[in-house]
């Protein structure tokens, strides 16, 4: 189960977050609060507004109204790059890797926001670039190795040749290398079979143990997948948050059963 902390402060808070596309309210006044070091599950059926929510947290969409506070600072109106620099890193449901590049190149770019050699060193002190690459590459491979040692030994392979599971692993490793304070995982188990899903969820739980201060927000449409790992879950349906609590609490919420599990 989840790791318990005595002292927690909220890392991310959304208030009245609303996104309107023309006549459609994709997200309607959602309030959420995620604590430091917490694994939080956001679940809901397809089209509930989960990915829209992520797109607002990362600056890809600008919310119609409402606010997103990351560590006491509003991030509304900031660019995705600025938000990434503030510590929010996401993965994508469709797994957006840089397809023409190798595993290692993808992972290295995860560290892009850290200090790195500038133009002068690139042109006139190239050995500095080399040592910088080597150091970061070693670190990158150490991260991906935890998921799958085969990926770490085949690091020059193009990511477009990898299986979906391996692409996900590379994508999550790349996100970890950006040293996020808030990691957003958009349906990490999409397209995986049950045993692969179990393994991945185990890996994610282990991440939490390795980086205890990092908060993780996981989107899933399959409730059972995150039942064992999320400390708190919130349920979205048609853009509205209908329940929040521990998994067992929301599981028995009649509204959730009606709206989501389809029970009558």
């Amino acid at each position, binding site marked *: 189960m989840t790791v318990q902390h005595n002292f927690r402060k909220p890392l991310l808070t959304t208030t009245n977050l609303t996104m309107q596309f023309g006549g459609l309210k994709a997200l309607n006044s959602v309030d959420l609060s995620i604590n430091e070091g917490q694994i939080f599950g956001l679940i809901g059926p397809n089209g509930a507004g989960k990915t829209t929510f992520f797109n607002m947290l990362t600056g890809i969409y600008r919310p119609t109204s409402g606010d997103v506070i990351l560590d006491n600072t509003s991030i509304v109106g900031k660019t995705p*790059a600025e938000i990434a620099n503030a510590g929010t890193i996401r993965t994508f449901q469709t797994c*957006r890797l*840089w397809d023409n590049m190798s595993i290692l190149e993808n992972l290295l*770019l995860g560290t892009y*926001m850290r200090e790195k050699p500038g133009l002068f060193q690139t*042109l006139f002190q190239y050995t500095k670039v080399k040592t910088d690459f080597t150091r970061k*590459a070693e670190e990158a491979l150490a991260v991906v190795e935890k998921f799958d040692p085969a990926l*770490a030994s085949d690091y020059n392979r193009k990511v477009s040749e990898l299986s979906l599971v391996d692409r996900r692993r590379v994508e999550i490793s*790349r996100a970890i290398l*950006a040293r996020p304070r808030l990691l957003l995982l958009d349906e990490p188990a999409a397209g995986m079979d049950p045993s692969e899903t179990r393994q991945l969820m185990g890996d994610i739980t282990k991440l939490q143990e390795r980086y205890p201060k990092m908060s993780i927000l996981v989107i899933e449409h399959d409730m059972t997948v995150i039942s064992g790992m999320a400390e708190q879950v919130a349920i979205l349906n048609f853009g509205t948050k209908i329940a929040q609590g521990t998994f067992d609490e929301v599981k028995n919420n009649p509204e959730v059963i009606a709206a989501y599990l389809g029970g009558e």
Partner: protein
Amino acid sequence: MKKNTSPAAGFIFSSIIYAAVVIFMAVDDLYISLGLIVAFAAGIITAVKTGFWQRALGSINDNTGKMTVLAGIFTLILPLLFLNNPYVIHIFTLACIYCIATLGLNIQVGSAGMVNFAQGAFFGVGAYVSALLDVHFGFPFWITLPAGMAAAGIMGLLMGLPTLKTREYHLSLVTIACAYISFLLVMNFKWTGGPDGIPDISKPVIFGMEIGQKITLGSITIPGVMTYCYMVLAFLALALIAARRLQNSWYGLAWNAIRDDEISSRCYGLSLTRSKLEAFAFGSIFAGAAGALYAHFIGFMSTENMSFQIGLLLVCMVILGGMDNLAGVLVGTLLLIIIPEKLRAFEDYRMLSYGLVLILMLIFRPEGILPSKPRMFNLTGRG
């Protein structure tokens, strides 16, 4: 780099290619040239079919260091083989000048995925700034060249700005517009010489010696073009080193990332604005250097050397050779300079044949003659 193949195949392959190129350059007759092209094409197809091509390329890739030395030696010897034929050296020098421009263009087209048709205009800016400073103010080449490069870089930045909101085809359209605007401006300004161009551009001087002048050593006469050729080769070497370092650096990684996926790149803290403007500025600096070298080489600069056609030709060279592969870019440039020179009889069909080459390449080998590949890291104790 991992060394798992012997360099032998690479050596043999490079030597054959080199010999073929030398023979082709030496031949004057149109029909023999045509025959050689056919024979060469047949040879390449045979090599691909028998697997020798792949083996040779693998061998070259695994022995990059040795192969670079070999290529350097081959290149340095080449002008010496044509002591009695300055015209060939002239063509070769032109090809090397264009190589500098295409190395820059490759940053935009190959690395960052922005097909820029305005590289001819940046070439022109470098050439004109350098030529005007020389002709009107008498500045030496060693000042006008950096000035031309800087001017082209600034132009690149300025032209990069309107393209920021656009992508892919729309971006290319914007660059075409930029190419025409620069062309028309230079054509219509008085101080640029307008359609008459700028004549009498002086040659560079090193240690009191004018580059591009005939040297007589006893019974041997070294044609003037030879010294200029070696100077251009020195610049090409510098350009190659710079291009290679940029490619294998955080800049290159960022350009490849924004080429592959803009949204993903932004979510990892890459600034599209910054990366794209850097690609435009750096690429244009290369073009500016090439332009200045060209103007002082020919001694005359006019608008037809910076037209949209030049931009199109440069894009063809990059696509033919292999986007984001420096060796490929050089091969593409050499081919598209040397072959048309030998087939001057078909001059009228030149633009048509560029179009044909581009279409055929995009159908049969869209990745170019030498496709790009991921940067090969070799970490000790792994793999």
